[in-house]
């Protein structure tokens, strides 16, 4: 069957004025289904269409999401086009506040006035959930640095108390953030519930002190220059850490019950359980991701460690293991034996 809309030979005059008879609010609802650059292009059609796109939902929406990779098709937008798109939307945005701003951009190089401006925009719209992901698909580090607090303060709009005071959730991927700035967020954002930092090269000595008691979720992953971390957060429930083996970071975390580990620290959790017994008993959910290329790999997994893990409250356990063909996984039964209340167990083996 021929699609009636793609049939170019059809008599066009049949459709005369068909769209012109629609009222503006319907045209705007049609434009709202388009990607912003497609909608903006309609301004060339005729004077009626000139400014219609400005009334699209997106310019007053409380949530803005930009991803340079199309979710449905997986195609990537050119950098320049993507930057233009974000800049145009942010410049034409009319809402007084923005709840959520999510930007996923394939950044090249450390400096970017565009990204600086997006952060300043988020700050001046008193954003609550802010996510900035600059990672490449191949994880080459772009080195973009989150602007310093002095710089942000100098660009703060009049009438706003302090930068990012409304923040509830901050997720940064492949954004270098200074430890000092992390401390600022924890000390000055009274509503902060979630903090996630991935692949920040400037993260070295982290003091996660929750002064307000709302912090529930924390992720620190692939920050390869991290030397130490100390967490004191009364209501922290979830913690994800993937990276170097560091001294135990848990200083005051009585409500921590969901833990996700990867990297050397995860190996230590499995192979040196006595070092983790001070907190392992409070865990209810545990996700462990073991990679093959590490020091512990050469330990024979068939030998059960001399002491066994203490996981008396554990209900769910998820293991992801990189393993060589034919290698025994019996070792990991020691984790199950250590968890008398286990209800759900998932294991995923990636054979290398």
């Amino acid at each position: 069957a021929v699609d009636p809309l793609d049939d170019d030979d059809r008599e066009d005059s049949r459709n005369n004025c068909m769209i012109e008879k629609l009222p503006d609010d319907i045209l705007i609802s049609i434009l709202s289904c388009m990607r912003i650059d497609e909608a903006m292009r309609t301004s060339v059609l005729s004077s009626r269409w000139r400014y219609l796109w400005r009334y699209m939902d997106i310019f007053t929406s409380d949530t803005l999401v930009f991803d340079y990779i199309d979710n449905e098709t997986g195609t990537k937008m050119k950098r320049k086009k993507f930057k233009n798109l974000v800049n145009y939307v942010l410049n034409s945005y009319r809402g007084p506040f923005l709840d959520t701003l999510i930007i996923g951009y394939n950044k090249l190089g450390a400096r970017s006035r565009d990204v600086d401006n997006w952060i300043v925009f988020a700050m001046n719209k008193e954003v609550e959930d802010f996510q900035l992901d600059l990672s490449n698909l191949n994880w080459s580090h772009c080195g973009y640095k989150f602007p310093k607090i002095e710089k942000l303060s100098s660009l703060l709009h009049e009438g706003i108390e302090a930068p990012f005071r409304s923040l509830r959730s901050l997720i940064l991927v492949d954004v270098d953030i200074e430890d000092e700035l992390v401390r600022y967020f924890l000390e000055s954002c009274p509503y902060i519930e979630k903090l996630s930092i991935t692949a920040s090269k400037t993260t070295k000595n982290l003091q996660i002190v929750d002064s307000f008691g709302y912090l529930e979720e924390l992720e620190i992953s692939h920050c390869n220059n991290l030397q130490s971390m100390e967490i004191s957060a009364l209501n922290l429930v979830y913690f994800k850490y993937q990276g170097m083996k560091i001294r135990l970071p848990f200083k005051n975390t009585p409500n921590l019950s969901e833990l996700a580990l990867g990297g050397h620290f995860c190996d230590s959790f499995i192979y040196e359980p006595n070092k983790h017994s001070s907190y392992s008993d409070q865990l209810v959910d545990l996700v462990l991701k073991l990679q093959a290329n590490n020091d512990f790999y050469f330990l024979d997994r068939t030998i059960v460690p001399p002491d066994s893990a203490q996981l008396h409250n554990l209900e769910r356990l998820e293991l992801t293991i990189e393993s060589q063909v034919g290698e025994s996984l019996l070792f990991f039964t020691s984790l199950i034996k250590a968890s008398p209340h286990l209800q759900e167990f998932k294991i995923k083996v990636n054979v290398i």
Partner: protein
Amino acid sequence: MAAETGTPTTLTLKSNDDELFSVAESAAILSVTIRNMVEDGCAGGVIPLDNVDGKTLASVITYMNGISAIPADEEKKKSYRDKFLSDKDFETLADMVLAANYLNMSCLMDAVSAKIAQVMEKKSVGWVRRKFGIENDYTPEEEAAVKEEHKWTFEGVETDDDN
């Protein structure tokens, strides 16, 4: 038209060209406009729909019956909507979106809007003007200025070599 068995309440809808249609109340109340009339007790006799013609109303009722026969399964509903709209031409789509707006049927409204949007995307300005009967009232200078203003949006889009 509407299933007679098991659905005791049937409504009669009248188009603006005086065609009468009977439809199960359970399907018809997908339209918030009709639902409000039913709730206000105005649905006893014939419900006049002054902004919808018979041809469009017949189509909308087909949609109402089709979609309400599908249990709560968003995926199946979506594929029904896609199939339902797949053989409609521009004129019908425009009538349909007007009717959906008047009848306050957000699911049909959204689906038709998305369909029209999808047709316009990536097409040249000339193509869209021709297909949708849009008269260009810009002077050549004005048009060039608007185009220049949104230059970046024209990257990777069909051009009007034939215009």
